[in-house]
């Protein structure tokens, strides 16, 4: 009898552990007025599981009034759990040389389950013509 109760408790705990976090529902206007200047991208994927969990849906660029390149990247969390990651942008001039940026911050971010989000960055100077986005899954602080 005790064994049966223990088994039931174990199953209940296991089911509770498997319960996924709340997922994000997204609603937007069907007739989009703004037209995004989507660009083609080239990807170097070294962490395939992470790229499957957090996918880059689209990248669009625009120029600010001050002739600075602005980049916007749309991300989607395809899983049923929260995904934490860090990212940083690198910038390159017309000759392909990396532009030194004192504020090249590594930014921590997260996506709720099923959430899509835009991350954006503005080039540090008008000389920047190209960019590169690096994304890395954040380590779990509880992991050794």
């Amino acid at each position, binding site marked *: 009898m005790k064994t049966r109760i223990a088994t039931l408790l174990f199953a209940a705990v296991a089911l509770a552990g498997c319960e996924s976090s709340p997922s994000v529902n997204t609603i937007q206007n069907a007739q989009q007025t703004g037209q995004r200047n989507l660009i083609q991208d080239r990807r170097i994927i070294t962490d395939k599981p992470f790229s499957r969990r957090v996918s880059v849906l689209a990248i669009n660029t625009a120029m600010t*009034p*001050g002739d*600075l390149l602005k980049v916007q990247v749309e991300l989607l969390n395809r899983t049923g759990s929260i995904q934490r990651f860090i990212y940083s942008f690198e910038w390159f001039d017309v000759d392909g040389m990396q532009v*030194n940026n*004192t*504020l090249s911050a590594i930014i921590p971010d997260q996506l709720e389950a099923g959430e899509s989000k835009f991350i954006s960055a503005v080039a540090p100077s008008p000389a920047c013509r190209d960019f590169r986005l690096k994304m890395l899954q*954040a380590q779990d602080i509880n992991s050794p």
Partner: protein
Amino acid sequence: MKIKALIPFVAVATSFAGCSSSPNAHYIQTGGQESVVNVNQINIQDFISAANAATSDLLASGVLDRVQPPPAVLAISRIVNNTSQQIDTDLLVKKIRVALLQSGKAVTTTTYGLGGPEDPLAAQMLSQPGRTPDFTLSGKIIETFARAGDIPGRLGG
């Protein structure tokens, strides 16, 4: 026989290699996976993120481009630390200054400043006529506390 004779040498070489590949002290990338994220305290990564956000928003707004003749002249005013921590506000201000200078959209003036120029040499030049600042940079670092049960939290801004 030859193999047996080689084993001690290989073992010694491996142990040396092990020693050299386990450094106790090394540089880490700021904000990277190895960086320490502390709670209840503002860290360098917070300053970089705040400076990055402030500068990006300022550059993207285009207000600096409306100044004639360019570049805009920016004077540094007071950054108030309204937190319970001791903070050198230059950690924030210097990053914004350098980023704006690198953008070419603004220059910061050292001849104007709250309580007199920061640079003593600039104080001597103050008597000479020059361009007055188009903008001033001021701000406040604040913190709020929140508690959910036994879990305390601090929000900086």
